[in-house]
Protein backbone atom coordinates (compact mmCIF):
# COMPACT_ATOMS: atom_id res chain seq x y z
CA UNK A 1 0.00 0.00 0.00
CA UNK A 2 1.35 3.41 -0.93
CA UNK A 3 2.44 5.62 1.93
CA UNK A 4 0.75 8.89 2.67
CA UNK A 5 3.85 10.80 1.67
CA UNK A 6 3.62 9.44 -1.86
CA UNK A 7 0.45 11.42 -2.43
CA UNK A 8 0.36 13.43 -5.61
CA UNK A 9 -2.87 15.22 -4.89
CA UNK A 10 -2.50 18.91 -5.60
CA UNK A 11 -1.77 21.11 -2.59
CA UNK A 12 -4.63 23.09 -1.14
CA UNK A 13 -7.24 20.48 -1.97
CA UNK A 14 -6.44 18.14 0.89
CA UNK A 15 -10.05 17.77 2.01
CA UNK A 16 -9.60 14.13 1.22
CA UNK A 17 -8.31 11.71 3.77
CA UNK A 18 -5.09 9.85 3.15
CA UNK A 19 -5.48 6.22 2.18
CA UNK A 20 -4.42 3.76 4.83
CA UNK A 21 -7.37 1.44 5.05
CA UNK A 22 -6.83 -0.98 7.90
CA UNK A 23 -5.47 1.45 10.47
CA UNK A 24 -8.27 3.84 9.61
CA UNK A 25 -10.83 1.13 10.25
CA UNK A 26 -9.32 0.56 13.71
CA UNK A 27 -9.38 4.26 14.51
CA UNK A 28 -12.97 4.60 13.37
CA UNK A 29 -14.24 1.70 15.42
CA UNK A 30 -12.39 2.97 18.51
CA UNK A 31 -13.96 6.39 18.05
CA UNK A 32 -17.44 4.92 17.72
CA UNK A 33 -16.90 2.78 20.80
CA UNK A 34 -15.74 5.84 22.74
CA UNK A 35 -18.71 7.92 21.60
CA UNK A 36 -21.07 5.16 22.66
CA UNK A 37 -19.54 4.65 26.08
CA UNK A 38 -19.09 8.30 26.91
CA UNK A 39 -22.19 9.85 25.32
CA UNK A 40 -24.56 6.93 24.71
CA UNK A 41 -24.99 7.57 20.97
CA UNK A 42 -24.55 4.33 19.10
CA UNK A 43 -23.25 4.70 15.55
CA UNK A 44 -21.50 1.32 15.57
CA UNK A 45 -24.01 -0.18 13.15
CA UNK A 46 -24.03 2.66 10.68
CA UNK A 47 -23.00 1.85 7.11
CA UNK A 48 -19.23 2.36 7.22
CA UNK A 49 -18.52 4.04 3.87
CA UNK A 50 -20.66 7.13 4.35
CA UNK A 51 -19.98 7.23 8.10
CA UNK A 52 -16.25 7.33 7.38
CA UNK A 53 -16.70 10.23 4.96
CA UNK A 54 -18.72 12.22 7.46
CA UNK A 55 -16.24 11.57 10.28
CA UNK A 56 -13.34 12.70 8.07
CA UNK A 57 -15.24 15.87 7.23
CA UNK A 58 -15.43 16.58 10.98
CA UNK A 59 -11.72 15.74 11.44
CA UNK A 60 -10.79 18.42 8.90
CA UNK A 61 -13.37 20.92 10.14
CA UNK A 62 -11.79 20.67 13.61
CA UNK A 63 -8.37 21.33 12.10
CA UNK A 64 -7.17 17.82 12.94
CA UNK A 65 -5.26 15.21 10.99
CA UNK A 66 -6.48 11.81 12.17
CA UNK A 67 -9.61 10.08 13.40
CA UNK A 68 -7.73 9.28 16.63
CA UNK A 69 -7.16 12.99 17.23
CA UNK A 70 -10.88 13.60 16.79
CA UNK A 71 -11.60 10.82 19.27
CA UNK A 72 -9.36 12.52 21.83
CA UNK A 73 -11.05 15.88 21.31
CA UNK A 74 -14.58 14.44 21.35
CA UNK A 75 -14.17 12.57 24.58
CA UNK A 76 -12.99 15.67 26.44
CA UNK A 77 -15.13 18.28 24.74
CA UNK A 78 -18.91 17.76 24.65
CA UNK A 79 -19.30 20.72 22.27
CA UNK A 80 -17.17 18.88 19.74
CA UNK A 81 -19.38 15.82 20.20
CA UNK A 82 -22.41 18.00 19.53
CA UNK A 83 -20.88 19.11 16.23
CA UNK A 84 -20.17 15.54 15.19
CA UNK A 85 -23.69 14.54 16.15
CA UNK A 86 -24.99 17.24 13.83
CA UNK A 87 -22.75 15.96 11.02
CA UNK A 88 -23.98 12.44 11.51
CA UNK A 89 -27.65 13.17 11.93
CA UNK A 90 -28.42 15.84 9.35
CA UNK A 91 -29.85 14.18 6.32
CA UNK A 92 -29.89 16.44 3.34
CA UNK A 93 -33.42 16.65 2.09
CA UNK A 94 -35.79 18.98 0.28
CA UNK A 95 -39.45 19.86 0.40
CA UNK A 96 -41.39 17.48 -1.83
CA UNK A 97 -38.15 15.63 -2.64
CA UNK A 98 -39.02 13.02 -5.28
CA UNK A 99 -42.35 14.64 -6.25
CA UNK A 100 -43.62 11.33 -7.62
CA UNK A 101 -43.66 9.99 -4.06
CA UNK A 102 -46.04 12.75 -2.96
CA UNK A 103 -48.20 12.23 -6.02
CA UNK A 104 -48.47 8.54 -5.18
CA UNK A 105 -49.18 9.43 -1.55
CA UNK A 106 -52.08 11.65 -2.64
CA UNK A 107 -53.49 9.05 -4.96
CA UNK A 108 -52.94 5.85 -3.03
CA UNK A 109 -52.50 6.63 0.66
CA UNK A 110 -54.91 9.54 1.21
CA UNK A 111 -57.96 7.45 0.16
CA UNK A 112 -56.98 4.97 2.88
CA UNK A 113 -56.61 7.76 5.44
CA UNK A 114 -60.11 9.00 4.60
CA UNK A 115 -61.51 5.73 5.91
CA UNK A 116 -60.10 6.41 9.40
CA UNK A 117 -61.69 8.77 11.90
CA UNK A 118 -58.21 9.70 13.11
CA UNK A 119 -54.76 9.10 11.68
CA UNK A 120 -51.37 8.88 13.37
CA UNK A 121 -48.36 9.39 11.10
CA UNK A 122 -44.74 8.89 12.12
CA UNK A 123 -42.01 10.65 10.18
CA UNK A 124 -38.96 8.83 11.50
CA UNK A 125 -35.63 10.62 11.15
CA UNK A 126 -37.28 13.90 10.15
CA UNK A 127 -34.00 15.89 10.28
CA UNK A 128 -34.66 19.59 9.61
CA UNK A 129 -38.33 18.99 8.83
CA UNK A 130 -38.69 19.54 5.08
CA UNK A 131 -40.66 16.31 4.70
CA UNK A 132 -42.89 17.10 7.67
CA UNK A 133 -43.99 20.44 6.24
CA UNK A 134 -44.46 18.87 2.81
CA UNK A 135 -46.67 16.20 4.28
CA UNK A 136 -48.67 18.71 6.33
CA UNK A 137 -49.31 20.78 3.19
CA UNK A 138 -50.41 17.68 1.30
CA UNK A 139 -52.77 16.54 4.08
CA UNK A 140 -54.18 20.07 4.40
CA UNK A 141 -54.93 20.23 0.68
CA UNK A 142 -56.53 16.80 0.76
CA UNK A 143 -58.62 17.93 3.75
CA UNK A 144 -57.46 15.20 6.09
CA UNK A 145 -55.02 17.24 8.17
CA UNK A 146 -57.65 18.10 10.80
CA UNK A 147 -57.97 14.50 11.83
CA UNK A 148 -54.30 13.63 11.62
CA UNK A 149 -51.40 13.88 14.01
CA UNK A 150 -47.83 13.76 12.74
CA UNK A 151 -45.12 12.53 15.07
CA UNK A 152 -41.82 13.85 13.74
CA UNK A 153 -38.79 12.35 15.43
CA UNK A 154 -35.06 12.62 15.15
CA UNK A 155 -32.07 11.57 17.21
CA UNK A 156 -30.82 15.15 17.37
CA UNK A 157 -32.54 17.80 19.49
CA UNK A 158 -30.97 20.79 17.74
CA UNK A 159 -32.09 19.50 14.37
CA UNK A 160 -35.61 19.29 15.80
CA UNK A 161 -35.37 22.93 16.91
CA UNK A 162 -34.65 23.90 13.35
CA UNK A 163 -37.58 21.83 12.16
CA UNK A 164 -39.87 23.50 14.71
CA UNK A 165 -38.82 26.97 13.58
CA UNK A 166 -40.23 26.31 10.10
CA UNK A 167 -37.71 28.58 8.41
CA UNK A 168 -36.11 27.33 5.23
CA UNK A 169 -33.64 29.04 2.89
CA UNK A 170 -35.38 31.46 0.56
CA UNK A 171 -33.15 30.52 -2.35
CA UNK A 172 -34.59 26.99 -2.24
CA UNK A 173 -38.16 28.12 -2.83
CA UNK A 174 -37.95 27.95 -6.60
CA UNK A 175 -36.85 24.34 -6.49
CA UNK A 176 -39.43 23.50 -3.81
CA UNK A 177 -42.20 25.21 -5.79
CA UNK A 178 -41.38 23.08 -8.82
CA UNK A 179 -41.33 19.96 -6.67
CA UNK A 180 -44.64 20.96 -5.09
CA UNK A 181 -46.34 21.37 -8.45
CA UNK A 182 -44.96 18.07 -9.75
CA UNK A 183 -46.08 16.45 -6.52
CA UNK A 184 -49.70 17.33 -7.24
CA UNK A 185 -49.90 20.66 -5.36
CA UNK A 186 -53.15 22.48 -5.98
CA UNK A 187 -52.43 26.03 -4.79
CA UNK A 188 -49.77 28.69 -5.13
CA UNK A 189 -46.86 27.37 -3.06
CA UNK A 190 -46.05 30.89 -1.88
CA UNK A 191 -49.32 30.90 0.10
CA UNK A 192 -47.59 28.70 2.65
CA UNK A 193 -44.71 30.97 3.62
CA UNK A 194 -43.69 34.54 4.24
CA UNK A 195 -40.36 35.73 2.91
CA UNK A 196 -38.30 37.49 5.55
CA UNK A 197 -34.61 38.36 5.28
CA UNK A 198 -33.11 35.34 3.58
CA UNK A 199 -35.56 32.85 5.05
CA UNK A 200 -38.99 31.55 4.17
CA UNK A 201 -41.11 31.29 7.31
CA UNK A 202 -43.74 28.61 6.89
CA UNK A 203 -47.20 29.01 8.39
CA UNK A 204 -47.36 27.95 12.01
CA UNK A 205 -50.73 26.31 11.36
CA UNK A 206 -48.91 23.65 9.35
CA UNK A 207 -47.38 22.25 12.53
CA UNK A 208 -50.47 22.63 14.71
CA UNK A 209 -50.92 18.86 14.60
CA UNK A 210 -47.24 17.98 14.62
CA UNK A 211 -45.43 16.61 17.66
CA UNK A 212 -41.67 16.98 17.37
CA UNK A 213 -39.84 14.61 19.68
CA UNK A 214 -36.41 13.15 20.18
CA UNK A 215 -36.28 9.46 19.34
CA UNK A 216 -33.33 7.22 18.54
CA UNK A 217 -34.13 4.52 16.00
CA UNK A 218 -31.05 2.60 17.08
CA UNK A 219 -31.92 2.23 20.74
CA UNK A 220 -35.46 3.43 21.48
CA UNK A 221 -38.61 1.35 21.35
CA UNK A 222 -41.90 1.99 19.69
CA UNK A 223 -43.94 4.74 21.35
CA UNK A 224 -47.32 4.43 19.66
CA UNK A 225 -49.34 2.66 17.02
CA UNK A 226 -49.36 4.32 13.61
CA UNK A 227 -51.43 4.28 10.44
CA UNK A 228 -48.51 5.54 8.38
CA UNK A 229 -44.75 5.47 8.91
CA UNK A 230 -42.50 7.43 6.59
CA UNK A 231 -38.76 6.86 6.78
CA UNK A 232 -37.10 7.94 3.57
CA UNK A 233 -33.35 7.83 2.99
CA UNK A 234 -32.61 7.41 6.67
CA UNK A 235 -31.93 3.69 6.79
CA UNK A 236 -29.49 3.91 3.88
CA UNK A 237 -27.04 5.14 6.52
CA UNK A 238 -27.50 1.95 8.56
CA UNK A 239 -25.88 -1.43 8.04
CA UNK A 240 -27.94 -4.52 7.26
CA UNK A 241 -28.26 -5.67 10.87
CA UNK A 242 -29.51 -2.32 12.09
CA UNK A 243 -31.83 -2.00 9.10
CA UNK A 244 -33.42 -5.30 10.04
CA UNK A 245 -33.95 -4.15 13.60
CA UNK A 246 -35.52 -0.86 12.56
CA UNK A 247 -37.75 -2.70 10.10
CA UNK A 248 -38.94 -4.86 12.97
CA UNK A 249 -39.65 -1.71 15.01
CA UNK A 250 -41.70 -0.25 12.15
CA UNK A 251 -43.62 -3.44 11.56
CA UNK A 252 -44.50 -3.68 15.23
CA UNK A 253 -45.54 -0.02 15.30
CA UNK A 254 -47.90 -0.18 12.32
CA UNK A 255 -51.57 -1.06 12.62
CA UNK A 256 -52.81 -3.78 10.32
CA UNK A 257 -53.23 -2.20 6.86
CA UNK A 258 -50.89 0.59 7.97
CA UNK A 259 -48.64 2.10 5.30
CA UNK A 260 -44.83 2.20 5.21
CA UNK A 261 -43.08 4.68 2.90
CA UNK A 262 -39.37 4.29 2.09
CA UNK A 263 -36.89 6.13 -0.14
CA UNK A 264 -36.76 5.48 -3.89
CA UNK A 265 -33.78 3.17 -3.72
CA UNK A 266 -34.57 1.42 -0.45
CA UNK A 267 -35.89 -2.08 -0.48
CA UNK A 268 -38.27 -3.93 1.76
CA UNK A 269 -36.23 -7.05 0.96
CA UNK A 270 -34.08 -6.42 4.00
CA UNK A 271 -37.03 -6.39 6.30
CA UNK A 272 -37.52 -9.62 8.22
CA UNK A 273 -41.21 -8.88 7.68
CA UNK A 274 -41.14 -8.58 3.90
CA UNK A 275 -43.90 -11.18 3.63
CA UNK A 276 -46.05 -9.12 5.98
CA UNK A 277 -46.38 -6.29 3.45
CA UNK A 278 -48.06 -5.91 0.09
CA UNK A 279 -46.99 -3.36 -2.49
CA UNK A 280 -49.14 -0.26 -2.65
CA UNK A 281 -46.87 1.47 -5.16
CA UNK A 282 -43.68 -0.48 -5.84
CA UNK A 283 -41.76 2.27 -7.66
CA UNK A 284 -42.53 4.84 -4.95
CA UNK A 285 -41.74 2.26 -2.24
CA UNK A 286 -45.13 2.45 -0.55
CA UNK A 287 -46.09 -0.75 1.24
CA UNK A 288 -49.13 -1.84 3.20
CA UNK A 289 -48.95 -4.11 6.21
CA UNK A 290 -51.16 -7.14 5.73
CA UNK A 291 -49.61 -9.72 8.05
Amino acid at each position, binding site marked *: *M*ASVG*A*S*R*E*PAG*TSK*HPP*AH*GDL*EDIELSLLLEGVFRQYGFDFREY*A*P*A*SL*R*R*RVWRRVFAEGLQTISALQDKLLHDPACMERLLLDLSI*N*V*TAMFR*DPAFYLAFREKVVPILRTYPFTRIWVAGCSTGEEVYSLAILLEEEQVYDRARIYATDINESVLDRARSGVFPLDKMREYTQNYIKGGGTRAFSEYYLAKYDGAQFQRSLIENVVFAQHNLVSDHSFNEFNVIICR*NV*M*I*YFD*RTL*QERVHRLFFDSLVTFGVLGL*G*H*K*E*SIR*FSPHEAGYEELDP*SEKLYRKVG
Partner: protein
Amino acid sequence: MYDLVCIGASWGGLKAIGQVLADLPAELDLPIAIAQHRHPDSPEGTLAQLLQAQTNRPVLDVEDKMAIEPRHVYIAPPNYHLLVERGSFALSVDERIQFARPSIDVLFETAAHAYGSGVIGIILTGANDDGAHGLARIKRVGGVAVIQDPLGAARRTMPDAAIAATVADAILPLDAIGKFIYGLWVQPATVREVTKA
Protein backbone atom coordinates in the same frame (compact mmCIF):
# COMPACT_ATOMS: atom_id res chain seq x y z
CA MET B 1 -6.48 -10.03 -9.68
CA TYR B 2 -9.04 -7.29 -9.87
CA ASP B 3 -12.32 -6.96 -8.00
CA LEU B 4 -14.13 -4.00 -9.48
CA VAL B 5 -14.08 -1.64 -12.45
CA CYS B 6 -15.29 1.90 -11.74
CA ILE B 7 -16.22 4.30 -14.52
CA GLY B 8 -16.84 8.03 -14.12
CA ALA B 9 -18.25 10.24 -16.84
CA SER B 10 -20.20 13.44 -17.29
CA TRP B 11 -20.94 15.43 -20.47
CA GLY B 12 -21.01 13.03 -23.41
CA GLY B 13 -20.69 10.08 -21.09
CA LEU B 14 -23.57 7.97 -22.30
CA LYS B 15 -21.99 7.36 -25.68
CA ALA B 16 -18.52 6.87 -24.22
CA ILE B 17 -19.64 4.41 -21.54
CA GLY B 18 -21.71 2.56 -24.13
CA GLN B 19 -18.64 2.06 -26.29
CA VAL B 20 -16.44 0.84 -23.43
CA LEU B 21 -19.11 -1.68 -22.38
CA ALA B 22 -19.64 -2.80 -25.97
CA ASP B 23 -15.89 -3.41 -26.36
CA LEU B 24 -15.57 -5.67 -23.30
CA PRO B 25 -15.39 -9.33 -24.30
CA ALA B 26 -18.14 -11.48 -22.85
CA GLU B 27 -15.83 -13.64 -20.73
CA LEU B 28 -14.59 -10.71 -18.65
CA ASP B 29 -16.43 -11.31 -15.40
CA LEU B 30 -15.54 -8.21 -13.36
CA PRO B 31 -18.37 -6.18 -11.88
CA ILE B 32 -18.57 -2.63 -13.23
CA ALA B 33 -19.83 0.38 -11.27
CA ILE B 34 -20.71 3.60 -13.08
CA ALA B 35 -21.19 7.16 -11.86
CA GLN B 36 -22.54 9.25 -14.70
CA HIS B 37 -23.66 12.79 -13.88
CA ARG B 38 -27.34 13.18 -14.55
CA HIS B 39 -30.04 15.72 -14.04
CA PRO B 40 -31.56 15.04 -10.59
CA ASP B 41 -35.01 14.67 -12.14
CA SER B 42 -33.95 12.28 -14.87
CA PRO B 43 -36.24 9.30 -14.82
CA GLU B 44 -34.88 6.26 -13.11
CA GLY B 45 -33.83 3.39 -15.24
CA THR B 46 -33.43 5.31 -18.50
CA LEU B 47 -29.63 5.27 -18.43
CA ALA B 48 -29.67 1.59 -17.51
CA GLN B 49 -32.01 0.86 -20.42
CA LEU B 50 -29.87 2.78 -22.89
CA LEU B 51 -26.70 1.03 -21.73
CA GLN B 52 -28.43 -2.33 -21.70
CA ALA B 53 -28.82 -1.96 -25.46
CA GLN B 54 -25.00 -1.94 -25.75
CA THR B 55 -24.16 -5.02 -23.72
CA ASN B 56 -25.32 -8.48 -22.78
CA ARG B 57 -24.32 -7.95 -19.17
CA PRO B 58 -27.13 -7.29 -16.72
CA VAL B 59 -27.36 -3.50 -16.19
CA LEU B 60 -28.97 -2.35 -12.94
CA ASP B 61 -29.79 0.88 -11.13
CA VAL B 62 -28.32 0.26 -7.68
CA GLU B 63 -30.63 -0.19 -4.71
CA ASP B 64 -29.31 0.29 -1.19
CA LYS B 65 -27.13 -2.63 0.03
CA MET B 66 -27.29 -4.43 -3.30
CA ALA B 67 -24.68 -7.21 -3.49
CA ILE B 68 -21.81 -6.78 -5.98
CA GLU B 69 -21.90 -9.69 -8.42
CA PRO B 70 -19.58 -10.71 -11.25
CA ARG B 71 -20.36 -9.47 -14.78
CA HIS B 72 -23.05 -7.07 -13.60
CA VAL B 73 -23.06 -3.40 -14.52
CA TYR B 74 -24.24 -1.10 -11.72
CA ILE B 75 -25.44 2.45 -12.24
CA ALA B 76 -25.49 5.16 -9.55
CA PRO B 77 -29.16 6.23 -9.33
CA PRO B 78 -29.97 9.90 -9.98
CA ASN B 79 -29.72 12.15 -6.92
CA TYR B 80 -27.83 9.60 -4.78
CA HIS B 81 -24.14 9.10 -4.15
CA LEU B 82 -23.00 5.54 -4.85
CA LEU B 83 -20.59 4.09 -2.28
CA VAL B 84 -18.73 0.80 -2.26
CA GLU B 85 -18.45 -1.46 0.77
CA ARG B 86 -16.75 -4.84 0.59
CA GLY B 87 -19.23 -7.08 -1.26
CA SER B 88 -22.06 -4.59 -1.58
CA PHE B 89 -23.07 -1.06 -2.47
CA ALA B 90 -24.44 1.67 -0.23
CA LEU B 91 -26.19 4.90 -1.12
CA SER B 92 -26.23 8.32 0.46
CA VAL B 93 -28.09 11.59 -0.04
CA ASP B 94 -25.29 13.70 1.41
CA GLU B 95 -24.67 17.14 -0.10
CA ARG B 96 -23.74 17.40 -3.72
CA ILE B 97 -19.99 17.49 -4.19
CA GLN B 98 -18.99 20.14 -6.71
CA PHE B 99 -22.64 20.24 -7.81
CA ALA B 100 -22.69 16.50 -8.48
CA ARG B 101 -24.77 13.72 -6.99
CA PRO B 102 -23.76 11.05 -7.83
CA SER B 103 -20.18 12.18 -7.31
CA ILE B 104 -17.50 10.23 -9.15
CA ASP B 105 -15.00 11.01 -6.35
CA VAL B 106 -17.28 9.36 -3.78
CA LEU B 107 -17.58 6.19 -5.87
CA PHE B 108 -13.85 5.99 -6.59
CA GLU B 109 -12.67 6.83 -3.07
CA THR B 110 -14.96 4.32 -1.38
CA ALA B 111 -14.02 1.68 -3.95
CA ALA B 112 -10.34 2.34 -3.21
CA HIS B 113 -10.99 1.90 0.49
CA ALA B 114 -12.96 -1.30 0.04
CA TYR B 115 -10.85 -3.04 -2.59
CA GLY B 116 -7.46 -1.26 -2.63
CA SER B 117 -5.30 -2.49 -5.48
CA GLY B 118 -8.21 -4.53 -6.84
CA VAL B 119 -9.84 -1.46 -8.38
CA ILE B 120 -9.57 -0.28 -11.97
CA GLY B 121 -10.73 3.34 -12.28
CA ILE B 122 -11.66 4.86 -15.63
CA ILE B 123 -12.28 8.56 -16.25
CA LEU B 124 -14.07 9.43 -19.47
CA THR B 125 -15.39 12.63 -21.04
CA GLY B 126 -16.77 15.47 -18.91
CA ALA B 127 -16.88 19.24 -18.47
CA ASN B 128 -15.78 19.41 -14.81
CA ASP B 129 -13.05 17.92 -12.64
CA ASP B 130 -15.05 15.37 -10.64
CA GLY B 131 -13.24 12.04 -10.40
CA ALA B 132 -9.70 13.43 -10.40
CA HIS B 133 -9.29 13.05 -6.63
CA GLY B 134 -10.93 9.65 -6.67
CA LEU B 135 -8.70 8.36 -9.43
CA ALA B 136 -5.62 9.63 -7.57
CA ARG B 137 -6.83 7.71 -4.52
CA ILE B 138 -7.27 4.50 -6.50
CA LYS B 139 -3.76 4.94 -7.80
CA ARG B 140 -2.36 5.58 -4.33
CA VAL B 141 -3.71 2.33 -2.93
CA GLY B 142 -2.18 0.39 -5.81
CA GLY B 143 -5.13 0.25 -8.21
CA VAL B 144 -5.12 1.03 -11.92
CA ALA B 145 -5.88 4.48 -13.37
CA VAL B 146 -7.16 4.70 -16.93
CA ILE B 147 -8.07 8.00 -18.59
CA GLN B 148 -9.71 8.69 -21.92
CA ASP B 149 -7.41 10.64 -24.24
CA PRO B 150 -8.61 14.26 -23.90
CA LEU B 151 -8.02 14.83 -27.61
CA GLY B 152 -10.88 12.59 -28.64
CA ALA B 153 -13.18 13.28 -25.69
CA ALA B 154 -16.51 15.07 -26.21
CA ARG B 155 -15.40 17.33 -23.32
CA ARG B 156 -11.79 17.23 -22.22
CA THR B 157 -11.94 19.02 -18.84
CA MET B 158 -12.49 15.84 -16.84
CA PRO B 159 -9.73 13.75 -18.47
CA ASP B 160 -7.36 16.75 -18.24
CA ALA B 161 -8.08 17.16 -14.52
CA ALA B 162 -7.50 13.45 -13.92
CA ILE B 163 -4.21 13.55 -15.82
CA ALA B 164 -3.09 16.50 -13.68
CA ALA B 165 -4.06 14.72 -10.45
CA THR B 166 -2.29 11.39 -10.85
CA VAL B 167 0.09 9.35 -12.96
CA ALA B 168 -2.18 7.33 -15.21
CA ASP B 169 -1.42 3.74 -16.10
CA ALA B 170 -2.88 4.43 -19.51
CA ILE B 171 -4.28 7.39 -21.45
CA LEU B 172 -6.16 5.89 -24.34
CA PRO B 173 -8.56 6.73 -27.13
CA LEU B 174 -12.05 5.57 -26.34
CA ASP B 175 -11.97 2.57 -28.66
CA ALA B 176 -8.85 1.16 -26.96
CA ILE B 177 -10.14 1.23 -23.38
CA GLY B 178 -12.21 -1.95 -23.52
CA LYS B 179 -9.28 -3.86 -24.97
CA PHE B 180 -6.92 -2.50 -22.30
CA ILE B 181 -9.23 -3.57 -19.48
CA TYR B 182 -9.51 -6.99 -21.05
CA GLY B 183 -5.71 -7.16 -21.21
CA LEU B 184 -5.44 -6.34 -17.50
CA TRP B 185 -7.99 -8.97 -16.65
CA VAL B 186 -6.24 -11.66 -18.71
CA GLN B 187 -2.74 -10.82 -17.54
CA PRO B 188 -2.71 -8.52 -14.52
CA ALA B 189 0.92 -8.90 -13.50
CA THR B 190 2.49 -8.40 -16.92
CA VAL B 191 0.55 -5.32 -17.75
CA ARG B 192 1.22 -3.80 -14.34
CA GLU B 193 4.96 -4.37 -14.70
CA VAL B 194 5.06 -2.77 -18.09
CA THR B 195 3.11 0.29 -17.01
CA LYS B 196 5.06 0.68 -13.78
CA ALA B 197 8.38 0.84 -15.60
